[in-house]
């Protein structure tokens, strides 16, 4: 499908049209950071910051909310229990390529048999408008290594590149094609537009320098080779096991399930909520045995999930290099730094 142009003067109309299709979540300022928020009314369109660098939380929260009701019950017995799936029509606007990859990984993880009906229903009800980036937001990002500077195929229905007074709009899906036809804000791209888009890519290529000292294809093996490294103990000494890193991660999806009783102490809901493998009790069983008691074993587990396990399971990156975990870590633990260090660790482990 040939690309189109969305003139910036049509942007507000475009968003207004999107708002007729479902709730629209877009990047807005949350000083001093940015966040994806649902637009309440048309006045909110002015709050959209298509120039944002990176949000605190990734848009994953619209596929896997931090809290959600799985079941509704009216007493301790299982009769009349109802499953609930909240899949409101939603448009995610302005999603950067690394977060598009994050959404893809989340969907891949929840699609694995037995599939998760809630996440998949929400994905089905969600339209995604991607937004290109031309440079890193900070020193902790490493998308160039993780292969996430460009969007994955088939995730964004429309993908926008800012080329001055207009957006170059690539159409990624059949639904995107329908949107383009249904909304009269677009015009076909001309030769000038194509040239501007090419120049954007050249700038982009110059900006996105790799930050790992090896090709990412070796990451899983390097991790495996440094399984016994003291690096994990050294880094874990600073870790508070607070779980912030997993909360802000676009590809983390571990959860807990709890029953929440209403005031009548009989009816209530079974809820699922984000959990973190970094919390001390995560792998503890009744009776007190804890299968990842040491901070180091939990930290290593996270690093391995990010660099190896999720990729091996889903074929999609378990880390998209967005840098959020490192930026928000109170102990300044950097996954980029750890991934850099394992090259040396692995070589050392190998030598002995």
């Amino acid at each position, binding site marked *: 499908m040939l690309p189109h142009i969305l003139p910036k003067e049509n942007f507000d109309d475009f968003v207004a049209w999107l708002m007729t*299709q*479902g709730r629209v979540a877009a990047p807005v300022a949350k000083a001093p950071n940015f966040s994806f928020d649902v637009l309440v009314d048309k006045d909110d369109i002015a709050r959209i910051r298509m120039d944002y660098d990176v949000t605190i939380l990734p848009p994953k929260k619209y596929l896997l909310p931090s809290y959600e009701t*799985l*079941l509704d*019950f009216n*007493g*301790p*017995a*299982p*009769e009349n*229990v*109802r*499953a*609930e*799936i909240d*899949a409101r*029509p939603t448009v995610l606007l302005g999603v950067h390529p690394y977060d598009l990859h994050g959404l893809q990984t989340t969907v891949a*993880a*929840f699609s694995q048999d*037995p*599939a*998760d*009906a*809630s996440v*998949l*229903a929400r994905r*089905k*009800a969600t*339209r995604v408008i991607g937004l290109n980036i031309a440079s890193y937001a900070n020193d902790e990002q490493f998308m160039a290594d993780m292969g996430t500077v460009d969007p994955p195929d088939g995730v964004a229905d429309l993908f926008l590149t800012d080329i001055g007074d207009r957006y170059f709009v690539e159409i990624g899906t059949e*639904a995107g094609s*329908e949107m383009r036809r*249904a909304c009269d804000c677009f015009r076909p791209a001309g030769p000038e537009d194509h040239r501007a888009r090419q120049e954007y890519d050249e700038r982009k290529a110059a900006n996105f320098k790799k930050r790992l000292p090896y090709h990412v294809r070796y990451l899983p093996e390097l991790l495996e080779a440094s399984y016994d490294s003291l690096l994990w103990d050294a880094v874990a000494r600073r870790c508070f096991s607070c779980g912030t890193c997993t909360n802000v991660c676009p590809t983390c*999806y*571990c*959860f*807990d*399930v*709890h*029953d929440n*009783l209403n005031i009548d102490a*009989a009816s*209530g809901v*079974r809820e699922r909520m984000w*959990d973190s*493998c970094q919390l001390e009790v*995560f*792998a*503890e*069983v*009744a*009776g007190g*045995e804890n*299968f*990842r008691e040491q901070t180091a*074993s939990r930290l290593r*587990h996270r690093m*391995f999930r990010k660099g190896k*396990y999720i990729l*091996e*399971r889903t074929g999609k990156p378990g880390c998209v290099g967005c840098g959020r975990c490192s930026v928000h870590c109170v102990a300044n633990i950097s996954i980029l730094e750890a991934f850099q260090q394992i090259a040396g660790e692995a070589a050392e482990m190998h030598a002995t």
Partner: protein
Amino acid sequence: MTQAMAQPPAETSPYLPRVGRIDEVRQFTETDKYFRLSFADGQGIRFLPGQFLEVSVFGIGEAPISLCSAPGDQAGVEMCIRRIGDVTGALHNLEAGATVGLRGPFGNGFDMDEAAGKDLLFVAGGLGLAPCRGFILDALNRRDEFRRVTILYGARTPSDLLFADDLKQWDQRDDCDFHVTVDRGDENWTGNTGVITTLFKKMPKLEPANTVAFIIGPPIMFKFAVLEALAMGLRKNQIYCSLERRMKCGLGKCGHCQIRNVYVCQEGPIFSYAEVMRLREGI
């Protein structure tokens, strides 16, 4: 856009349990109760030994519990539940006629066809007899398909012994060798005392290269029993165990049961000792 947003029926939620009716409850020990259940939808269940169900009491939560009855196509299931926390405590308060939520079966289980023609060695410690019983009943029901069958069972004290009726039966059968021991006897106990590994000396000689062993019990018991089995010459990939982990979904998603890159709720809980060694964080 609108047609793409049709919601799938919520009944497809993998969290929605079936209704299980408790047909019988028996107090086995101070902390362990036996439950026999059937499905209110009359549909029955098909499972392998080693698989488990997620059992719900709404308002309290859900807990994974091993199926301890004979596997295959069954109208109902049996479970042995130790009271240790919220959900298991709530289950202990239920009487025959009450209903609970049941999801599953989950886990890999073990197809006893794979052990056909072999000597079988079952080593069960404590509550480990519950999952182990499914294997044992299957083997005894299809007795002709296997060679020697040996069952070793250890409990802390005589009053901790589970499935007393089964123990009596196994002891009386002449087509299987059954040995039981307790760590500490009481005035009425005339049987073996000592940890379970002492039973290895009492059992008949097996053909190590042709034996499949199931060692199911607490990690400490597993470690010692495995050493005995290896000393006998059993192969690492012919010794099976069941790993316990925290579980919140049974669907390979929540991450609680994960050992390295393995979800115990889906790819376990039955692992060969060779696999446990490879995982490194298994035991």
